[in-house]
């Protein structure tokens, strides 16, 4: 699909608009993180502002295991098991943090979880054990030079390696899928499974209580729910999937840093994604992140995924670019000044507009338009097509 478009007459436009496969892989695992954030924040109404701590936990666990730094688990531990271990550690962490934090609500809850996460962030940044230079974060070392395998652990026929450089290549129906594309499908598979798992929880009796807590916690208590325990449970589940997302990220990238895993702005990106996609819609977060990434990439510099800038340059031609506007500013200079590396500006503007005019987000609005039921059936279909 991607290729067809790229080879078609509108290839320049296509390349400008479509994110690259690498970006799409990022959309998948970070989308999963955003979904897990939405799971707790959008469904119970408790803004988990320190959610990045779970993402980071998952990522670091995978790398530490691969580097043989986690007791009992050698570098040869199957990736799927590492993901699970990361998730379990995150559950433990979520329960610890949650025990204290769920005594609070509203802004105070958001702030105390943020506080905890930042404590972990600073700690991980200074912990020599995780990497020679913990400030820069760990990377998968030579003890695990091969790619991380997704599939049935131990059965090679049913597993494929991920990673741009380490991924397996697969010949399929006459065309070959590159390592990145294989990663896309394999990670997509895990994300899909996780998404359905969370979807399942939301539609379970437990999930309905989460919604009841968001809608009216006082009343939920009055009809007999010990909401404290439900919130803790939801937090643990959400932490688990956030860690899986982090693990996928580390497995694909083969490195992590405190800034791109534990830092509070990572949570900020998840928040952005869920708002744009639709708070409390689960799948919306993924579309929200896709949207965010597409805009960013569209506006990013030449050579880092194509985008508007090189397209405009090519379209306008050198003469137009060199034409001067006022003083010494050329059109090219102006375009460069306004576009080059300033994607955040436009993402911010889009975001502000969303808050003001599309408060329900992409998916929320769509669902409201089309009616509630379609959303249950459609995600699976859309997922297959989203490349």
């Amino acid at each position, binding site marked *: 699909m991607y290729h067809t478009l790229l080879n078609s007459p509108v290839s320049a436009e296509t390349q400008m608009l479509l994110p690259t496969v690498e970006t799409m892989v990022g959309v998948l695992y970070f989308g999963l993180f955003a979904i897990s954030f939405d799971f707790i924040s959008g469904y119970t109404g408790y803004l988990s502002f320190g959610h990045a701590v779970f993402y980071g936990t998952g990522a670091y666990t995978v790398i530490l295991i691969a580097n043989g730094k986690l007791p009992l688990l050698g570098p040869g531990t199957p990736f799927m098991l590492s993901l699970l271990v990361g998730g379990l550690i995150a559950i433990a962490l979520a329960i610890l943090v949650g025990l204290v934090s769920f005594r609070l609500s509203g802004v105070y809850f958001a702030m105390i979880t943020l506080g905890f996460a930042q404590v972990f962030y600073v700690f991980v940044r200074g912990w020599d054990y995780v990497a020679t230079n913990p400030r820069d974060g760990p990377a998968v070392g030579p003890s695990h030079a091969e790619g991380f395998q997704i599939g049935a652990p131990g059965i090679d026929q049913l597993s494929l390696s991920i990673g741009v450089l380490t991924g397996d290549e697969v010949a399929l129906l006459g065309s070959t899928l590159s390592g990145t594309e294989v990663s896309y499908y394999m990670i997509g598979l895990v994300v899909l499974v996780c998404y359905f798992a969370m979807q399942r929880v939301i539609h379970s009796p*437990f999930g309905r209580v989460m919604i*009841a807590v968001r809608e009216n916690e006082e009343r939920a208590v*009055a009809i007999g729910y010990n909401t404290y325990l439900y919130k803790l449970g939801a937090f643990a589940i959400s932490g688990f999937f956030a860690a899986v997302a982090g693990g996928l990220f580390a497995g694909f990238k083969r490195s992590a840093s405190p800034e791109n895993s534990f830092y509070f702005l990572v949570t900020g990106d998840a928040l952005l994604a869920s708002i744009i996609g639709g708070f409390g819609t689960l799948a919306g977060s993924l579309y929200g992140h896709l949207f965010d990434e597409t805009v960013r990439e569209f506006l990013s510099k030449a050579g880092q995924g194509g985008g508007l800038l090189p397209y405009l340059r090519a379209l306008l031609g050198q003469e137009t670019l060199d034409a001067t506007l006022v003083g010494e500013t050329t059109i090219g200079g102006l375009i460069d000044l306004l576009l080059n590396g300033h994607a955040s500006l436009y993402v911010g503007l889009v975001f502000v507009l969303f808050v003001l005019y599309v408060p329900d987000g992409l998916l929320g609005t769509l669902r409201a338009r089309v009616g509630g039921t379609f959303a249950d059936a459609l995600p699976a279909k859309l997922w297959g097509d989203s490349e």
Partner: protein
Amino acid sequence: MLRTQGLTKEFGGLVAVDSVDFELDAELCSLIGPNGAGKTTFFNLLTGSLSPTEGTVELRRNGTWEDITNVSPHETASKGIHRSYQVTNVFPNSTVLENVRVAEQAHSDDATTFWRNVDRYEEFTERAWAILDRVGLSHRAEDLASTLSHGAKRKLEVAIALAGDPAVLLLDEPNAGVSSESVDEIRDLIEAVAEDYPVLLVEHNMDIVMGVSDRVVVLHQGAVIADGPPADVRANPDVQSAYLGGYEPGSLDDDTTAVGSDPDSEEGTA
């Protein structure tokens, strides 16, 4: 069913509930009294939403009295004390059916199940439908609770309380703000419900109180000033002056306090 001994609640210097000894049998008992008499506070003490300054609350289960003073609200609810609220307090962005269904689900062992779809638990849904039928809301089942009219919301309040499979039902002004046409419906509903459960009813509409109650208790400045069959209470001169008849200084508050909310006091839940 439910009894209190010396139940007292003070807010700062204000004694909102003043050593109340009260016992509810299998009956429809009304609790009346001027605004600010302490009726809602009394409810909050029974359900554990507030803890008393002094005194005890006990619930009879399986023939023995169990002390439930200071037990948290979700536990009193799971022990069977269910209430409707004076100020509508439902799950606004859930459907009417879901409001009742989630309350149904609360007292089942499957409430914590997170791997099975709710739709598999048809029994909850069926019972929720039955309750909606009973309160006359089944035609609105699929609508969001926030879109209901005031009167319909009052019915939903009762429905949610009923869904708890109560041992005791506490109804706090189910008629508050209900237009006259609907008053009769709710009144019928109360009477019907009282056939099945012991009911403690707070109500300002004297037509209803006098018409449906087996017994009326009058609260004034936190204390019980009369207790007996409706006719007796109505004739009681203290009650006449404190509540039914002429004005008597001392009632501190009015029912609109709770309603005229200050937008700034809303704490973000997000």
